[in-house]
């Protein structure tokens, strides 16, 4: 089995981007930088989806996460942060404690995976080619049969509506109080 294929190189690059930018995003002291690194991480994750040839999911990841949520973050940072104060110093002790927790977690999960994780999935093909077609996704989301998700879809719609209203109410509370 050839080790250096285009596919593998792309995967390696993507994983470096995802993990490296993720790490930078939690370590950097400036929030705006953190948001930027987060953006790169999200794009990397979208790349991983593409590698598994889940195109629509990658598109959703990019548009919703990178396009929507990140914009929210940036708005919030700009609105909330006072200029010149947009950095924070984290005490070393706190980082050590967080590091211990993270390290323990990683150790336990990885050990478990290598000891028990012999998944017998080894497709012969080098890469995934067949993509999930849009019609199937549409039917799955809007169907009512087995393995179809109309009810959660509707519930999500209501959740979003509630979130819009809730966010408005919470953000406007102060104003109403003043009046």
């Amino acid at each position, binding site marked *: 089995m050839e080790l250096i294929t285009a596919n593998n190189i792309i995967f390696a690059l993507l994983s470096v981007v995802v993990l490296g930018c993720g790490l930078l995003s939690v370590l950097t002291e400036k929030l705006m930088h953190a948001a930027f690194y987060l953006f790169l991480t999200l794009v990397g994750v979208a790349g991983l989806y593409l590698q598994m040839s889940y195109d629509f999911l990658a598109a959703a990841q990019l548009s919703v996460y990178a396009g929507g949520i990140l914009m929210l973050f940036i708005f919030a940072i700009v609105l909330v942060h006072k200029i010149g104060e947009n950095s924070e110093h984290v005490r070393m002790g*706190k980082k050590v*404690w967080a590091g211990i*927790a993270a390290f*323990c*977690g990683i150790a*336990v*999960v990885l050990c*478990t995976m290598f000891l*028990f994780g012999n998944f017998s999935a080894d497709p012969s093909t080098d890469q995934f080619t067949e993509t999930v077609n849009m019609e199937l996704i549409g039917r799955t989301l809007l169907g009512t049969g087995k393995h179809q998700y109309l009810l959660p879809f509707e519930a999500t719609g209501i959740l979003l509506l509630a979130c819009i209203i809730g966010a408005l109410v919470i953000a406007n509370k102060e104003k109403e109080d003043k009046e």
Partner: protein
Amino acid sequence: MEITSIAPWILLLPFLMFIFLGLTAHKFSGQTSAKIGTTAFGIVAILCYYVAGRYFFGNFSVLDANGFEVFNKTGEIYNQITVFNWTWMQMTENLTIHIGFYLDPISAMMLVVIATVSLMVHIYSYGYMFEHGHFDEGMSRYYAVLSLFSFAMLGLVLATNIFQMYIFWELVGVSSFLLIGYYFFKPAAVSACKKAFIVTRFADMFFLIGILILSYHTQTFDFDQLNADNAKHVLDSFSITDGSRGITFLGFPLITIATFCIFLGGAGKSAMFPFHIWLPDAMEGPTPSSALIHAATMVVAGVFLVARLFPVYSFAAPEVLNAICYIGAFTALFAAIIAVAQTDIKRVLAFSTISQIAYMMVALGVARFGNHESELGFTASMMHLFTHAMFKAMLFLCCGCIIHCVESNEMSKMGGLKKYMPITYWCFLIGCLAIAGIPIFSGFYSKGEILTACLENGYTAIYVVMTLTAGLTAFYMFRLFFHIFHYEENPEYATSHHKPHDQGWQMTLPLIVFAVLTVGFVFLPGFNNAITATRTYMEMPTNWTVEGISIAVALLGIAIAFFLYYKKNEKPANIMAKCPALCEFVYNRMKIDEIWYGITRSFIFGVICKSIAWFDHNCIDGFMNLCAWITQKVSLETKDAQSGNVQQYVWVFIMGVVTIAFLALY
């Protein structure tokens, strides 16, 4: 009307009245409460008379536990019938506590006594509590407790089993406590009610021990079973035979211990020496309640208890009866001597009550089953109980009238009241003649029978003591009488705009009723028809020598009292001056109270209580404090965990999950 349908109301009605009056005490004025309470008790009294009348003179039957018809009378013998017997607490298969209604001659007689005295006191209190144009604030409370007392006393005499009796026994103790402490703002009343409660509770402890020993061995509480067939069941249970005294404990026959303990309970309530100390102090209560509780009904509970278990005493423990009659005789003489030196009129009556109850105890003590002569004491005792209840209640109510006018209990504040209060005067005179044992008046008959019983059964020493006591009784009662109504008129009366006078009809009517009962006792159907140890007709022997001597002694006593106290003179003071120490000693009730106080202070408080208190302070409290201290420390140490810091929570959460995963997987 059926007896079975009436009987429950005799107990229920006073109880419901207690609850009703107690709960509505602040809603109604005292006057309304009094009227409601009196009316309700009037109904109860009518029911009591009806039941007692049907029992003595009528003919009826009830179904017993096995469904057999039981008549009140078989031929000439009155039966002991259980009208109803509710299961109150079923502890185990064998241990069941019943609340029931037990009719036999003595409980029927007690029904009459309680109904009469309590009703009269209900009526009398209405006038007594009405002072200076306004009612006492606590009038509703007073009537509520009066109802409670009536309920408890009726329950006590109607008890089908010794445990029911014990429960009601404690209830009368509580209501007595509440009534003595009625004027709770007076320190003397508070200490008196505590004293009464503690002393009687102390005696009741023995009662309970006695009950436990007796019922442990006999496996029953029922009077029916205990008394049946000459107490055969008790004799068998304690394996008493002609030759042996049965099971022993520390060398004493157990039956003796049990029955003596039960008697001690009775001695506490009936104020026998040395438990008599509470009764004189109990006079701090309102006078009508003294008349009801501490003269006529509750204090004879001890006598009633011994009479109720008389077959057991007579067959199984005659030596306890001996002890009873010696204790009784001593108490009678002792109380009579103290009564001579008292100056508080209610105290005189209190000691006289102790002395007279001791008479009843003596009469029971000398009685045995056997023949008419030996059983005479039982009937004599019950007769004296009845007559004493009537005339002593009357004397107390008279005292109430006098105190109401004079507003003092001290003899020295009185004198020459005859012309101001004629009705009270005559009633008091009748009461004094009755208690002194002058013919025609009720006391003469019962006291004569008691003396006869003593002599006939060979208790000559006791007879002499009792006769001497009779003389003393006549003396101190007439000393009291002359002091109040003759002697020297208190000069304040004539000048006062608020002259002493007879009270309103509510207060004079009871006096007249009791006076009529006392004088008309001879016309009542003879006690020897029913109220006898064998519950059938019994010949009452009359020993004219005994009667003659007792009349002579009584007249002598009256004569001395007349000589000393009819007109103001120096003789009493001269006599007292000759032996001041003795007078002081007797006036201070022979220091018995001080001895008790000494024992309680130095031994109980000093030794037992202090060590218990030490244990409580250091061990129990220490343990509790330790627990509290540990809890406090732990919570102080751990409260930081609740910091509100989300990140800390997440850290703990993640570490917890990791740990659990680790433990679960490896």
